[in-house]
């Protein structure tokens, strides 16, 4: 096993990986941009190295700076997390070239799966079913022809894609040119490559993905599926394991195909094979993510296996500790992605300081968070703040528990997606398991309730009036406050004292 590991990431996933290292007794090294000097991952690690200014290109995507930190710290392995450089084959190679271990698959496997067009071709060759579509990058003119051939609606996808960027669904031939232009712009901006291809839209499909684990000796197993159909603009919002749409036989079948897909590229370490599952039980390969997935905790909750520790073991040359028969799914897990986006306002990313924070805990609740009170959320990075994960004996208990945990979660000072998740947990369609990837985006898609309870508006009105009252009272008592600190804090303290008269 390694002695010292550098985590080339930030936020909740950096903390998650640092924890696994800590629990394996490994020394840990964080890297940080100037925006993250007091972030959790910096405080958590044994050592921390500055790698640049806030802009990702100058810090978390800055390969030379990260390799230099790894050398200075004397680590023997690098874990990339997800996002940033995690699927960058050049970074993987640079880590190996520096004589360090890479906690992930070989650079060739990353490259093969990273180019979505190449991946499709490899999967077809390996007998893995794929979504009907183009098997190569397309010019705008070719795209018109292919779209006609496979039939509308079609989905434009970036060859270098990931995270929903550069994706556009087109229902009407007339919209294709503008959508192509937008997709290319977004792809070029995000990946520096505007190659696109087309896939047929499978109507009413669910997004179901299989977690695989493979060692360096050709052993490969799957850990069951995750259902990730609750998406908005191809970005996952809520995931659960297992899927209500996957009976045991289908799990075995999809799992076997997922293992075949991984083996087709000589995969080792943890990876995820994404499928679309249609209403008749047919499934189609979408892509393989050659890294740890955001939603990996739900698989951990139902299997009892710590995926990050397994990643470390595999990367250090250990054999898989499990065979397929050892893997048992117990109970049900759900994850809600809590991000700094305003669900009342088209999910626009929000920035600002976390003024207060109360985190849910208690039975069956697991929180993977990258924030703390006082932390400044910036627009430089992904808006994901934390992942709230619950386990329940069954799906009903998990939903009720998630609702309870969301109710406990208070993040002050910044808009978050918590209200969205609360309302999804309350929706009968979600509770009934009757949904597909159009749950949010579709024409009859889930909408945040605009008609809140009258009782709550009254509570809000009373709270604000009490606050205003105390502020006014205090102004009379104190005259003008003496500095900004006094102005911002004292009135509320006073409010407490005055309001407390009744019960004391």
């Amino acid at each position, binding site marked *: 096993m390694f002695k010292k590991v550098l985590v080339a990431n930030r936020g909740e996933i950096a903390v998650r990986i640092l924890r696994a290292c800590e629990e394996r007794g490994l020394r840990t090294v964080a890297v940080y941009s100037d925006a993250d000097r007091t972030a959790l991952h910096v405080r958590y690690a044994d050592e921390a190295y500055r790698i640049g200014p806030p802009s990702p290109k100058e810090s978390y995507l800055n390969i030379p700076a990260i390799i230099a930190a790894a050398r200075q710290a004397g680590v023997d392995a690098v874990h990339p997390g997800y996002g940033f450089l995690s699927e960058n084959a050049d970074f993987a190679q640079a880590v190996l070239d520096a004589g360090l271990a890479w906690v992930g698959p070989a650079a060739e496997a990353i490259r093969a799966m990273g180019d979505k067009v190449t991946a499709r071709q490899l999967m077809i060759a390996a007998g893995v079913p794929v979504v009907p579509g183009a098997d190569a990058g397309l010019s705008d003119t070719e795209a018109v022809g292919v779209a006609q051939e496979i039939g509308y609606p079609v989905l434009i996808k970036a060859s270098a894609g990931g995270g929903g960027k550069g994706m556009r669904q087109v229902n009407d031939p007339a919209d294709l040119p503008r959508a192509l232009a937008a997709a290319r712009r977004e792809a070029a901006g995000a990946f520096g490559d505007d190659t696109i291809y087309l896939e047929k839209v499978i109507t009413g499909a669910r997004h179901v993905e299989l977690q695989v684990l493979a060692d360096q000796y050709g052993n490969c197993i799957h850990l069951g599926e995750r259902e990730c159909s609750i998406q908005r603009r191809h970005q996952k919002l809520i995931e659960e394991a297992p899927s209500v749409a996957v009976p045991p036989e289908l799990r075995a079948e999809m799992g076997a195909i997922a293992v075949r897909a991984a083996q087709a590229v000589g995969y080792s370490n943890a990876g995820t094979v994404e499928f679309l599952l249609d209403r008749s039980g047919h499934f189609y390969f979408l892509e393989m993510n050659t890294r740890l997935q955001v939603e990996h905790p739900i698989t951990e909750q139902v299997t009892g296996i710590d995926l990050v520790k397994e990643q470390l073991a595999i990367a250090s040359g250990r054999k898989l500790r499990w065979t397929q028969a050892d893997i048992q799914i117990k109970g049900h897990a759900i994850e809600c992605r809590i991000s700094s986006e305003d669900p009342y306002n088209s999910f*626009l990313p929000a920035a600002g300081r976390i003024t207060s924070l109360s985190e849910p805990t208690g039975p069956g609740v697991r929180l993977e968070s990258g924030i703390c*009170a006082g932390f400044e959320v910036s*627009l430089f990075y*992904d808006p994901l703040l934390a992942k709230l994960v619950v386990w329940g004996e069954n799906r009903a208990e998990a939903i009720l528990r998630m609702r309870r945990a969301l109710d406990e979660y*208070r993040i*002050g000072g910044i808009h978050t997606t918590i209200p969205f998740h609360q309302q999804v947990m309350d929706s009968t369609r979600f509770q009934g398991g009757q949904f597909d990837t159009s749950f949010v985006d579709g024409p009859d898609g889930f909408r945040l309730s605009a008609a809140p309870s009258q009782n709550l508006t009254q509570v809000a009105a009373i*709270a604000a*009036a*009490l606050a205003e009252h105390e502020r006014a009272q205090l102004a009379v008592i104190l005259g003008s406050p003496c500095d900004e600190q006094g102005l911002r804090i004292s009135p509320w303290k006073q409010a407490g004292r005055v309001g407390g008269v*009744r019960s004391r």
Partner: protein
Amino acid sequence: MKYFASVEGRTYEIAIDHHGQITVDGVAMAADMQPVSGRHLYSLLLDNTSHEVVLDTDEEGRNLYEVMVAGLRYQVKVQDERSRRLALADRSLKAPSGELAIKAPIPGLVVSVLVELNQEVAEGETLIILEAMKMENELRAPRAGAIREVRTESGAQVALGQVLVTLR
């Protein structure tokens, strides 16, 4: 002391005395609000019903509160009798201008401006595409109207709150 708290188009008349007793639209209630940790989180007991409330004020202190209750967020404007009278008088003097500014809700890059001067737009029509966080965000018209001004252009970097387009 009497206050008028407006939220979601409704105004509550709230009278507060010093002993934890209030009346809301004439109905008496026991109210006890206590700060919990720092300045934003409060415990509010209303006739024994327990609420956790996150309160934020706007920086300029214009009696505008953002209140989070049970996961839902409300904007509440609070006026006392004097400021309410002033505001009502003020409103009666001015003709409603009807002008509406579309501001950048997030700093970013203007990818394209889809409208031009004097163009009539429907409610919900996309006016501007703004790239931020590497995603394109569509800014739509909150109501129907005509474009009075276009204050930005394709390729411009805009700051949070910057006016991009005005409607009349």
